[in-house]
């Protein structure tokens, strides 16, 4: 029997990706191949479908045609339940705006993410991650009491606490000044490297361009 030919080094791969909205607006995206541990910056002006691409890659939107495969799994062909499970385990997303479960504390937000995504809690992982991100002293705080900078760091922690294979970030720097912009991008790069995860940043922010070697311009 011939072995299945899968390049184990390529974690994220897309082919002939196409998506159309109900209003008839259609997007076609160039094919992507991102090897294990690599980072990619997707640059484009607003309205070119950056967020759409991210949602397709993360399995939040169904493709019109083409494939997205992550770690050898074609996420367009698995069932809805399998996709929920797969997304939970393998993908971390940082959204433009931070979203949390408001009735829970920082720690509880991290715990419920771990519980849902990996069906177990790992307080050691939470503590170390939060120490690196500088939010370890906020664990008992309600999320509503956090400052904007703290919220962003918690978003990063939430996207990484379950050790995903791919980390997506949607405009993570749009509301930040130059100094913080660089700090946040470096944090994302560093954490992705430590977790051995692919990092895909989608932005229109030209300041970030110099910090990445792999670019895709939409």
């Amino acid at each position: 029997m011939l072995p299945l030919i899968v390049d184990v080094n390529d974690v994220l791969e897309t082919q002939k990706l196409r998506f159309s909205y109900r209003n008839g607006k259609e997007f076609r995206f160039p094919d992507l191949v991102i090897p294990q541990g690599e980072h990619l910056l997707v640059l484009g002006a607003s309205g070119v479908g950056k967020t759409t691409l991210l949602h397709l890659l993360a399995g939040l939107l169904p493709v019109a045609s083409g494939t997205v495969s992550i770690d050898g799994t074609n996420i367009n062909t698995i069932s809805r339940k399998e996709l929920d499970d797969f997304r939970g385990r393998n993908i971390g997303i940082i959204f433009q705006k931070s979203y949390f479960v408001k009735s829970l504390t920082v720690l509880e937000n991290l715990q419920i993410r771990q519980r849902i995504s990996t069906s177990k809690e790992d307080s050691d992982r939470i503590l170390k991650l939060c120490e690196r991100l500088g939010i370890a002293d906020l664990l008992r705080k309600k999320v509503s009491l956090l400052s904007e900078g703290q919220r962003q760091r918690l978003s990063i922690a939430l996207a990484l606490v379950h050790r995903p294979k791919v980390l997506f970030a949607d405009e993570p720097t749009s509301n930040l000044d130059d100094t913080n912009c660089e700090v946040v991008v470096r944090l994302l790069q560093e954490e992705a490297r430590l977790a051995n995860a692919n990092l895909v940043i989608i932005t229109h922010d030209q300041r970030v361009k110099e910090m990445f070697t792999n670019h895709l311009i939409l």
Partner: protein
Amino acid sequence: MSFLKLAVKNLLSKPLNAFLSLVLLMLSVALVTLVVQVGDQLASNFKKNIRPVDMVVGAKGSPLQLVLSSILHIDAPTGNIDLQEAESLSKNPLIAKAVPVSYGDSYKGYRILGTDTTYLGLYGATLTEGTLFEHPLEVVLGDRVRQALQLNIGDTFISSHGMAETSLDAHESHPFTIRGFLKPTGTVVDNLIITPLESIWEVHDHTGEEAHETTQEAHAITAMLIRFRNPLGMVQLPRYINENTNMQAALPNFEVQRLLGLLGTGTKMINAIALAILLVSGVSIFIGLLKAIRERRHELALLRIYGATTLQLLWTALLEGLLLAFSGCVLGWCLGRLGLWVFSSHTRSNYGYSLAQPSFTAEESLLFLSVFLITVLAVFFASFSIYKLNISKTLSDE
């Protein structure tokens, strides 16, 4: 950090909404349980007490009052009847047993009933201690009276006129002596002090100027309790007595049914109100949850990103509703029982009747089931948006 814990935290994050729903649930559960318990217990209490008596003969007046006073001992007597006239009735072949009762005095709020030993036979009351009365002014105490008064055999006490607990008009020259105690029967007997008919006459046979006046009616009784030999008595005797004598015949079964019918209308009314409150609390849970789910749509989308399934999110919403329903039921039930206790202590001090505090009944489990059902429906209708949740759209809008 489980979904249950999340449901609890979500519930507590909107304390006012939760409180409103909880209070409404509590109120309706408390009302229903209280009304059902009071209604059931009064009915069974009345029925148990009237069962040995087929007919009461007493002075003319309200038949219901006659039954309430002479059998259930919760009303004033209609008046007196002549013992001889009443006894002439008992010779009727349709009558198996005729028990004379006479009362009007009390001791510390407990009625003193003048009768003969056949009265005890009606209720199957037997002695636990001491002997039955043999002479006038000797008494036996019902079980609850014994517990309340803490007197011993051989002790004496002075009765007072009427039902006042401390009466100026005490019959000091005629002390009663306790001869025995009765076993608990679960009937009116438990609340009575029982003595021979003659005691009542002797107590009221005042010396001095009034003497002549009162001895005239000395041989009067308040009522005669009748048991028929066969059902034909039910058909013939009441009519005969009401038409041909100065006395009145009343059928306890009929009168109590009539009373319960009247009470039943009130009970139904309160139950309808309770049901309306229950529905309002269902609507309040529905609105609260609908609002919460709408406000939390970003969180729900986030949980879906984390890998939670639609079913798990529905389950969390359901848990939130069920937590409310459960606490509403438990607190409402406790409130209902507290109400029953208050009602019972009121009836005990006023009528000598107390109501039992039953544990969880089958009817109540049915009530709880309907509360849960209403909650599940409310959650179901409030959670439609969870089904239709578009993660991508929810998380990309500003």
